C-alpha cells in the first residue's frame, strides 16, 4: 500500500517536472503575441493566451486560471508600456515563478522593441488613464510586428538553446512572408490615405499612422472614460465642421456610442478587430491585417 503511494508520488513528480513536457511553455498576455509565438516557436512551444480579442487588455483581473498558468510558464510575452499594469505584476508575483519576473530572461516585453508614439507631455490623470511610456496598442501597425518577432526569436533561442537554429530559421521565413504581405497591404490600402475618421478609444493610433488615416476626434472624452452625451454632441459638432468617413471601434467595445453618431450623420460605424481573433476572419496575424484593411476599404466605398 505504502509502496504504491510512493510509486504514485514518483509518477506525479515526473509529470510536474518541466522537462517532461519538452515544449517551452509560453504565457502571452494578448492574442497577437500568442499568434506570433506560435509563428516562431511552431511545435517547440506551447502557448497559452491570457486574454481573448473580445476583452479590453487594460481591464483584466488576476484570475485564478492566469496565476496557475503563470506558475508553470517558462516565458511571459507581454506588450508592456503599462498595458497590463493592472494585473500582470499581481499574476507573476502571486504565481511565485522566479523565471518570469520582470528583468529575468523569462519576461519579454514587445513594446521595448518598437518606438512608441503619443508619449504624454504631461502625466496627469485629468487626461484619462494615460500611459506614461506612450501608446501601447502597437499591434495595429504591421511594421511593429517584425522587430518584435526578431526579439522574440532571439529570446526563445536564449531560453531553449537546443532549438535556437529552429527558431531563427522560422523567424527568417516569417520575416520574408511578412514583408511580402506588408507591401500588398500597403498597395491595397492606398485609397485610405488621407481619410478622416473618428475613433471610439485611442486604440488605433498606429494603424492610422501606418495607413495615413486622420483621426479627427475620439468618442471617449479622455482615454479610459466612457463616452458621455455632452462629449458626443461636441464630437457631432466637430464632424459638421470636418466631415469624416467612418467611426471606428474595436469589436470588444460597446457599439452604442458609435451607433449614436452613425444615426445622426450619414457616416458608417465600423467595428475593427483589435487583434487576432477580434473577428471570425482574423484567425492569425496575416488574416488579422487582411480583415482590418478589408473592413476599412468597405467603409470608404
Amino acid at each position: 500500500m505504502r509502496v504504491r503511494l510512493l510509486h504514485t508520488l514518483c509518477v506525479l513528480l515526473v509529470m510536474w517536472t518541466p522537462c517532461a513536457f519538452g515544449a517551452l511553455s509560453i504565457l502571452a498576455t494578448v492574442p497577437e503575441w500568442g499568434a506570433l509565438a506560435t509563428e516562431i516557436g511552431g511545435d517547440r512551444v506551447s502557448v497559452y493566451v491570457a486574454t481573448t480579442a473580445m476583452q479590453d487588455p487594460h481591464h483584466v483581473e488576476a484570475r485564478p486560471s492566469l496565476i496557475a498558468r503563470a506558475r508553470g510558464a517558462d516565458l511571459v510575452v507581454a506588450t508592456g508600456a503599462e498595458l497590463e499594469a493592472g494585473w500582470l505584476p499581481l499574476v507573476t508575483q502571486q504565481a511565485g515563478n522566479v523565471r518570469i519576473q520582470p528583468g529575468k530572461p523569462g519576461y519579454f516585453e514587445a513594446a521595448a522593441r518598437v518606438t512608441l508614439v503619443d508619449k504624454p507631455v504631461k502625466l496627469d490623470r485629468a487626461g484619462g488613464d494615460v500611459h506614461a511610456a506612450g501608446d501601447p496598442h502597437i499591434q495595429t501597425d504591421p511594421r511593429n510586428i517584425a522587430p518584435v518577432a526578431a526579439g522574440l526569436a532571439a529570446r526563445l533561442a536564449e531560453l531553449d538553446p537546443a532549438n535556437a537554429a529552429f527558431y531563427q530559421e522560422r523567424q527568417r521565413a516569417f520575416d520574408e512572408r511578412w514583408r511580402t504581405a506588408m507591401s500588398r497591404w500597403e498597395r491595397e490600402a492606398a485609397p485610405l490615405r488621407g481619410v478622416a475618421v473618428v475613433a471610439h478609444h485611442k486604440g488605433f493610433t498606429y494603424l492610422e499612422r501606418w495607413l495615413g488615416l486622420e483621426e479627427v476626434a475620439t468618442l471617449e472624452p479622455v482615454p479610459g472614460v466612457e463616452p458621455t452625451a455632452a462629449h458626443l454632441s461636441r464630437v457631432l459638432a466637430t464632424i459638421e465642421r470636418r466631415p469624416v468617413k467612418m467611426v471606428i471601434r474595436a469589436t470588444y467595445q460597446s457599439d452604442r456610442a458609435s451607433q449614436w453618431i452613425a444615426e445622426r450623420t450619414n457616416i458608417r460605424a465600423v467595428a475593427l478587430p483589435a487583434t487576432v481573433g477580434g473577428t471570425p476572419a482574423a484567425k492569425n496575424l496575416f488574416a488579422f491585417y487582411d480583415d482590418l484593411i478589408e473592413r476599412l476599404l468597405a467603409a470608404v466605398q
Partner: protein
Amino acid sequence: MAPAAVRRGITALALSLLPCAASAASDDELAQIRAEIRQLKEAYEARIRALEDRLKEAETRASASPAIATSPMPETAPPAPAATSTASGIAAFNPAISVVLQGRYASLSQDPEQYRIAGFPSGGEIGPGRRGFSLAESELAFSASVDHLFAGNLIIALSPDNEVSVEEAYGVVTAAPFGVVPKFGRFFSGLGYQNEQHQHAWDFIDAPLAYEAFLGGQYANDGLQLKWVAPTEHFVELGAEIGNGDNFPGSRRGRNGVGSFAAYAHTGGDVGASHSWRAGLSYLSTRARDREYFQLDTVGNDALLGFSGDSDTVIADFVWKYAPNGNARGTNFKLQTEYFWRRERGDLTYDRDGALGSTQTDAYRATQRGFYVQGVWQFMPAWRVGARYDRLDPGSIDYGANAAFLHTMSFHPNRYSLMFDWTPSEFSRLRLQLARSKVRPDVTDDQLFLQYILTFGAHGAHKY
C-alpha cells in the same frame, strides 16, 4: 516485491530527468562556446537586417506617395536602450506611491455608540461608524523592490480621528525556490475571500456581519506567511501563517512563541471565456487570554466578561464572476458568499471588573455560525447595483456555572443591504448604500450611507 516497485518508481523518475541531465552534463565548455558564437552570429544578423530594413524603408519613402511621407512612421529599427526613465538621481529610486481618500455621510436610526452584535463576543473595529458627515480612513501605500531578494510594502491608515496606524507593513521574498512566496511583517491574512482586500476595494461600505462577529472586521497579524501555487494547469493555492495572535478572536498573551496559526487552500478556474470562479477553505486557530467584552446578563446589567482559551474558526468561501466574453467593461455580475464556523473552549469570567459584585469564573464552550451572500451587477458601463444578506447563528453556548448570570439567546442577528455605485473611471467611485440591520433583539437600525473613494498615484492592482 516492495523494493522492486520502489526501484521502478525511481527508474521512471531518473529516466524522465535524463534529457535535461544529459544536456546539462555534456561538455559544458563546448556548449558555452557554441552559445557564444551563436549569440555573436545573431547579433550581427540582427544588425544587418536592421540596416536592410532602413535601406528598404528609405527606398519606399522615396518612392511612396507624399501622404505617407508626411505622417512620420514609427521607427522599426532595433530598440533604443531601456534607460527611458527621466527621473534622475535620488528620485529615480522612489517607491510606487498611491493614496486613497474616502469620506462618507451616514444617517443611522440607532445610536452607533450602542452597537453590539447580540450573542457574540465582540472585538476589533466593528459597527456602522459615526453619524453625519465624516472622513473615512485615508490610506497611503508605498511599495518597491528592496533588492534582488526582497520587495517591500507599507500601507499606512490615517483615521478620521487623526490617528495613524500601520495597516500593513511587510516584506516579500521574491527569489524563493519551488514557487514559494514568503511574506513577513504585518499583513491581512489570506483567510477567506474578502479578508485580504482593503476596505476601499469592498463592494459595500462596511464588512459583512460575519466578518465583524468572527474576525473583528478584518483579520491582520504580525508574523510569517507562506503561500504556494501548485505547478498544475488548474489553480490550487495553499497557504499557512503563524503570528502573534494579538488580534480578535485571539488576544495579547504576553508569551513567547506562536499565538495564532492559519492554513488555507484555494482553487478556481475559468468556465469558458465568460465565467470564472474561486473557492476556498480556511482554518484559524488562536488562543485568547482575558479577552474582554461587554454583554447584557439575565438581569439586564452590562457585565464585563473575560474569556481565556482556544478559539478555532473555519471559513468556506466561494466567488463566481460572469462577464459576457470575459469583457467586464460593459456588464458583469459577481456572486460572493462566505460561511463561518467557530468553536471556543476555555474559561469565562463573569463580572471581571467586579462592578456587579459577583465575579465568578467557570468553563465555557460555544459553537457559533454565520454567513453572508452578496451579488453585484454592473448593468451598464460604470454603474452597478448590489444586494447583500447577512445572518448569524449564536448557536449553543455552555456557560457552566455562569449560566446563573448569562443565557443563550435564540435571536439571529441579520441585515439586508442594498448598494448602488457609480465608477466614472478606474480611480474614483461614488456609492449609496441602504441597510436594515437587526443585530440586537427588538432593535432595527435603518441605515443610509453616501461614500466617495478617490485613488491617485501608482496604478492599483485588479485583484480577483
